[in-house]
């Protein structure tokens, strides 16, 4: 591409000035290697966690310095692709499970299949590996092994006389109805249904539960049939009955956490990280009242449900220090580091789930994880995922906002899966 659009004149005039300036700024006489790493400021490990891990790495590797940048999840994909064109962008990037196809096709990430040692292959959970794979190649190391769990407020359930959290999605609505009727909270369930990827994650969980499919065997849209429609109908039904917080349509994960942590919801679907944050007195008013179970199933179709919301760390193809970058990635994803910081994100290592450092104090979460992590349902693997997702987000919103029935909205989306235009 670059050559196609290169303008020599532009290069002469603009480039000269910029390069001269850039050199004077960035040549700080550092003999050390500096890596730029891009992370997200949302869910999973907190910024403080990442800083602490990185500080440990720097202490263990004198001569390597890491510049950290945090962007909202919503900006992570575009920042990564835009920086790709920048050449001098990031060395290490955090990527979502849905991007390896696109990033591999566009050569954004380096193929690291050969760098992965047998110990890694053996030790990491198979579900985690799917996060970084595309066409049998691996484009990084899994780092955040995550799925959405059903969180509940134990105190509210107790007051409502509910003995156990729901096992099926239908039961969730029944329990929510009881809670609403007893006026314990106005809207018992809270979700992240903003027009964003977050809504797709909740939808995917439901699609898994209702036995639906995104694409059929030929790669054609299949979400407009069967379980795909049931899942969306369930979402609209919960809103219609006043059981789901209507503001969910504008919420991302952080909003869900805030509402749940302030005690204004009995149930919430959210990532791992909410468990310990909702139990943190500085962040929450419901400390010690947080229950967590796998997301429910549907009678006759599933016992429980889960979405693969994992993320990996990869080396960009523009990195000038791929070896140091890989060193950093292997450190960040190593078993000791992941076990040390296991409060907001659970380790990728199978052995960790027996380690007291991981399980102590969060037995309920680890128990739920053992079920959920085995069930993680993937979102479609396609290089044009962004477009498919945007189209689906619009369909979901059209149904939630009543401009269209769930079946019609999904049918429209399936017909125009090309991405809006």
């Amino acid at each position, binding site marked *: 591409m670059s050559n196609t659009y290169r303008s020599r004149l532009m290069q002469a005039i603009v480039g000269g000035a910029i390069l001269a300036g850039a050199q004077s700024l960035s040549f700080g006489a550092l003999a050390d290697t500096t890596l730029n790493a891009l992370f997200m400021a949302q869910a999973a490990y907190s910024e403080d966690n990442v800083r602490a891990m990185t500080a440990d790495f720097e202490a263990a590797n004198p001569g390597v310095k890491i510049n950290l940048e945090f962007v909202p999840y919503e900006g992570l994909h575009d920042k990564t692709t835009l920086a790709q064109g920048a050449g001098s962008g990031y060395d290490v990037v955090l990527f979502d499970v849905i991007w390896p196809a696109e990033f591999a096709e566009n050569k954004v990430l380096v193929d690291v299949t050969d760098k992965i040692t047998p110990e890694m292959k053996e030790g990491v959970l198979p579900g985690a590996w799917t996060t970084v794979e595309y066409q049998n190649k691996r484009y990084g190391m899994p780092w955040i092994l995550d799925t959405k769990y059903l969180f509940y407020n134990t105190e509210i359930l107790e007051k409502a006389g509910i003995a156990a959290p729901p096992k099926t999605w239908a039961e969730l609505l029944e329990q929510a109805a009881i809670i609403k009727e007893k006026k314990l909270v106005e809207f018992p369930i809270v979700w992240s249904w903003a027009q964003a990827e977050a809504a797709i994650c909740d939808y995917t969980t439901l699609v898994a539960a209702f036995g639906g499919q995104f694409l059929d065997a030929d790669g054609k849209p299949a979400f407009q049939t069967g379980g795909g429609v049931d899942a969306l109908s369930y979402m609209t039904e919960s809103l219609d009955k006043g059981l789901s917080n209507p503001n969910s349509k504008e919420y991302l994960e952080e909003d869900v956490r*805030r509402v749940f942590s302030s005690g204004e919801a009995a149930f919430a679907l959210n990532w791992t990280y909410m468990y310990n944050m909702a139990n943190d007195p500085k962040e929450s008013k419901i400390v010690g009242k947080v229950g967590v179970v796998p997301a429910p199933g549907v009678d006759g179709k599933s016992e429980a449900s889960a979405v693969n919301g994992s993320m990996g760390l990869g080396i960009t193809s523009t990195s000038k220090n791929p070896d140091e970058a890989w060193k950093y990635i292997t450190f960040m994803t190593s078993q000791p580091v992941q076990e040390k910081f296991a409060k907001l994100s659970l380790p990728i290592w199978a052995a960790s789930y027996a380690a007291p450092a991981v399980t102590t104090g969060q037995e309920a979460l680890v128990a739920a994880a053992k079920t959920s992590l085995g069930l993680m349902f993937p979102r479609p693997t396609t290089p044009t995922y962004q477009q498919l997702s945007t189209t689906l987000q619009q369909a979901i919103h059209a149904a939630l906002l009543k401009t269209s029935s769930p079946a019609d909205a999904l049918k429209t989306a399936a017909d125009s899966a090309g991405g809006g235009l």
Partner: protein
Amino acid sequence: MMERRSLPFSIFLYANAIVLGIFIVAPLLWLVIMSISDTNDLTTVPLRWLPQTLDLHRYGELTSTVANSVGAAFLQAMRNSLLVAGMATIAALAVAIPAAWSVSRADGKLDVSLYGIIATYMLPPVALVVPIYFALSALGALNSVFSLAIVYLSILAPFTTWLLKSNFDHVPVEIEKAAMIDGARLDQILRRVTLPLAAPALTTAGLFAFLLAWDEFFYALLFTAKDSKTLPVFIADLAGGRVADYGLIATAGVLASLPPVLIGFFLQKSLVSGLTAGGVKG
């Protein structure tokens, strides 16, 4: 106005003035209050409008210089904004001064070119951004405050030219002619005669240009990352990310607004000429 006012009219007038005042000040006041309130006060329903305790820790947090902290990132963004806006402004003036003088002294013959330039710079940036991105990418010049300053030049230069041209129109040609007869070269005339006379206008134009650059978001969003981010991009990222602490977002907003607000008050008298010339933001 000379006429006497009736009492009902006076009441009407003051009532409206108060409503207008509240409409303007209330959102800003709330921004400031959010920045100094405890998070618990802000997330209580019904809302407590006045904080129970004064909480200034966020101002400390944002001005902290600890490596990889929010404060360090904020200060870096502030520095980038200053750098980009400053460089773009100086470059814009350097380009605009000769151009404006030339158009002004051409007795209307070159006005057409100026109108053409004004028209061009009002085009939507989305129509230009892809090729600029390709070009900067090919040059390895993305993520650089220098590139961003050069891109901003295309916005600031026409605008400052326009502002300066109307000011140069007021510098009497006779003085310049007199200097010319004394044998002064063109650059000497400009430096010693015209520019000193137009000094206030230069300051105004420069400050306006600075404000435009300080405010720009679209190009900055696409062309900067990591350590070249400007303040608007930093704030948009902060507001979009994992910050349950609204006060911190508000604090960043307050700090980022201080320079333009101060400049705005300074510019008060010459504001209208700048506004008409397209010095609008947003």
